[in-house]
């Protein structure tokens, strides 16, 4: 049981660090774009092949960004679990 508790805190700590790191990048984009729109309207309205920069980001590029971030999260999260499972297995042997 002691071993389990050590495992628990290890799992949660590593997972939550990972989750918060991915969330931080995402929140920076999500909350940063309204600021860009408000304080750098010229840059936000820059014409890129018919789209304004801000429309291109919000209407098109945003979705692939969520895919990249979630792919990264899942790969890292599974790796954490595998590592822990291996460590735990060695300890209980």
């Amino acid at each position, binding site marked *: 049981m002691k071993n389990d508790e050590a495992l628990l805190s290890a799992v949660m700590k590593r997972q939550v660090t990972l989750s918060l790191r991915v969330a931080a990048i995402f929140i920076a984009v999500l909350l940063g774009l309204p600021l860009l729109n408000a304080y750098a309207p010229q840059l*936000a309205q820059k014409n890129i092949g*018919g789209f304004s920069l801000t429309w291109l980001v919000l209407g098109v590029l945003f979705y692939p960004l969520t895919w990249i971030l979630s792919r990264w999260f899942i790969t890292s999260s599974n790796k954490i*679990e595998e590592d822990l499972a291996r460590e735990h297995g060695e300890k209980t042997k």
Partner: protein
Amino acid sequence: MSLIPLFFVIAVTLATFFLGLWATKRAQSASDFFVAGRQVSVGMNAAAISGEYLSAASFMGVAGLVMKNGYDALWYPVGYAAGYLFLLLFIAGPLRRFGAYTIPDFAEGRFDSPLFRKIAVTFVLFIGLFYTMPQMKGAGVTMNSIMGWPYFVGILVVGTVISANVALGGMKGITFVQAFQYWAKLFAISVPVFVLMAILGPYHKKLENFTQKPGGAPTAPKDVTLKFAGKDKAPANTVGFSSLGEATLIFSKDAKIEKVSTVRKSEPGEDALRPEMSLTTQLSQGITPGDSLTAGTQLTAFPIVVTKEQKPVEKNGKSVMTAPKIEFSEPTEAVLKAGSFVPNAPGNKKWSEPYGPLTSASGYPLLYTYSLIIALVCGTAGLPHILVRFYTNPDGRSAKRTTFWVMVLIGVFYFFTPIWGTLGRADIPWLYGNNKTDAVVIQLPRILENKLLGEILAGITSAGAFAAFMSTFSGLLVSMSGAAAHDVYGKIIKPTATPEERVKVFKLAAVGIGIISMGLGLLVETFDIAKLVGWAFAIAAASYFPLLLLGAWWKKLTMPGAATGMLVGGTLSLLAVFAFMLDSFKIITIENPLVKTLCDQPAIWGVPLSIGLMVIVSKLTAKTIPADANLKMLRLHAPEELGLSKNYIDETPGAAH
């Protein structure tokens, strides 16, 4: 009116019914009914979740919102997609590892508190019913606009077919159908838009016309007949003329004017305006409220110069303009003359740039934008009917992979919705005139020269819209019936009930709640679809999202803490939206623009309030932390290989008996 769209709608409805019937044969055990036997593959579950999530609001509403409000409305689909990322980062894996049947199971099991189950189940039913009403309304309105049938017909069709499907097959029965409906919706939103772009011109060219000509506004390309609503459908009876140029309406039916005002609210110190005098007919200069215009009257509206002490007010070197706004008392009909500036259409600058009409109406555009983002993100991650689907995955790891694929599937879908809005503004701008932008996906194909092609494409989008009402309603019905049969009956009323008895109650509940939903759908004909969905999101964001977030990650969360946060946060958010609703019906008046913004978009204070209360009350009641909190957390987070995870409810046939 052509019968082609009807044919497509009937086809998708029959496909739904028979696919459901076919899948039903394999649904027998209680576990099949509540969580599809926990055997749904990643691809199937991702398509089913996406199918369930892309509701009437997503299919018709987002395209319409982009047409109406431009850039600002792009936040809606982005917020929805972002919600799934948060779901993935913080909730999906632990929630699945808990292994229950319903979300109230999590509430009870995490704290060993039957009382908390009661609170949680109330929220499931509340959120579910709020979310159901707009689906029903969408069905009624669509059937009305494509076939001219009465409002109740669409509701009856969707309600009956789906209640039958759910009662017969439960979660297992609808999973396959919802997956099919996702692909039907993706086809319906994407294929017609490619055809339309090939004929009418590409997305980026249309958009460039608006971004590069900020001073312009849509004008009617030809004479078009518009049907206007009466005051019983307010605010849809409003015609706000353009401040950029004149517009002419020739009434083909008698019309009665309820109210005349200006589009822009006067600021303190400005001279009083006389909008009546900027409306002329061939008979008189100026019209006043109460006037009746007979059929044949030609009404022209002119922009008005805003003045202060008799001098034009200037802003950025240009004089500030407004225009008259009229409201009709009774439904009427008029021809908008070619070349008229289309009423109710925002100018190109306001439409294509951030902080347009949607977010700045209140005066606090940045605050409004942030609050909207928080509501959509936290609301999506807290919708019980979506969350319950994660229990249908075999394990925590597949729950995470499912979330990834959901993001891909809904992202691809949402990429297409702004294209509809943009093309709609460019090619059928007259939809603004009588506030029908919601119908853009159905009406746009009909302007094609080739009528047959137009009707076929309109048929495809109508069928897509129907697939949207049906799949979302079926998900809601499963989640509400599950709550009624499993939580209310199986855990509260008769804890000794056998799985077979609970399946029976599930079927009865599906029929009963189906009938209630149809009844509620009939009541909300005049409500705004987006607002109704907003209510559901506001409650979910301030109740379930904080519960799941803290419940999965904070060991010291106690039942009193979680319950206080959920009840106070959820209830206050609901009251705030309700107050805003009363204000928009002019029953009460909220003077302060800041208070009004915070009532319209309560998430920015509701979510932190709920989380804050959970933390504070948990600290005060630290004695009540469940004794086995550690073991519970271990189950939520330990990788499956360790053999520590155990489904909270395990009734797979053969395992329990």
